[in-house]
């Protein structure tokens, strides 16, 4: 990471204020007006539209192998997704991924 301390603090502060304004928006300012349905419909999908894409390149081209696809990390990612989805429990998924990764790395 090559940002100055001031830049990092600026990022944190702007994210804090921006997130606060998002949270405050309707509660504080909009009053009783309802948001149009199509806006709500898009907002519902923001997390699943961003998070998978953010992580996909890291799974397919991991940094640790210099960007070459790696079956061990792919298996760990798969275990994480399946267990987290199945149990609906983030920590169970993370644990499954960590155990898969560590044991496969240890075996190879």
């Amino acid at each position, binding site marked *: *990471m090559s940002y100055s301390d001031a830049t*990092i*603090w600026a*990022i*944190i502060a702007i*994210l*804090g*204020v*921006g*997130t*606060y304004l*998002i*949270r*405050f*928006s*309707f*509660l*504080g300012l*909009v009053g009783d007006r309802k*948001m149009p349905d*199509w806006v*709500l*419909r*898009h*907002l*519902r*999908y*923001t*997390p*699943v*539209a*961003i*998070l*998978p*894409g*953010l*992580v*996909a*390149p*890291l*799974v*397919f081209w*991991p*940094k*640790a192998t210099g960007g070459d696809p790696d079956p061990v*990390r792919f298996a*760990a*990612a798969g275990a*994480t997704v*399946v267990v*987290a*989805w199945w149990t609906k429990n*983030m*920590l*169970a*998924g*993370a644990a499954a*991924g*960590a155990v898969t*990764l560590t044991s496969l790395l240890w075996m190879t």
Partner: protein
Amino acid sequence: MATTTRNSAFRAGFLAGLPFLLIGVPFAVLFGVVATEAGLSITQTIGFSFLVIAGASQFTAIQLMTENAPVFIVLAAALAVNLRMAMYSASLQPHLGGATLPQRALAAYLNVDASYALGILKFEEKPDWPVTDKFLYFCGTMVLMFPLWVIGTWIGAAAGDALPEGLDLDFAMPIMFLALTAPMVKTLAHLGAAVTSIVGALLLSFLPSGVGILFAAIVAMAVGAEIERRRT
């Protein structure tokens, strides 16, 4: 309203919030570890959790920062992850809109996934509760969660700082993201959005870091919304 009722609304919120600590606190510790490993100072890491209070967007920002993405990309992606909270805000409005401005200002600060989920569940069950009770219930859900979120981050940051250099944490971030996201996939529309996001991000990965994901996310949102519209 009698004081006893108010106390009981607050206490009910407090009790309802307890199970969420099992998820929230370890998550905060992990954020502390990952953020300091990525190069943030302990103070910056704690500041992050104190000011933003939103795990997924905090991880998003850190990930893009480790890639040295342009600042506005870091901000755009991390704020976009939090856009869902505008929806929370809108849906809490009929219940808490009648509270005083300082109360609404505080409720907005504490409006996170857990408090929203618990709050809206209770408010729909008890629509006739006075607004003060609803406000107190909402605050009750966060009265432990918020301080423990910050303290957990601090513990993780201190631990991360103490970890030896070069420890193999390269894949901790992807695992956290996947574990966080997978349970969000509840419908075909979510799945469509997630798959679009993955394919789009991989296809656009030749763009400067963080840029491709923004385009991919916009298309993915549209795909999710469109699938939902056609199926309802």
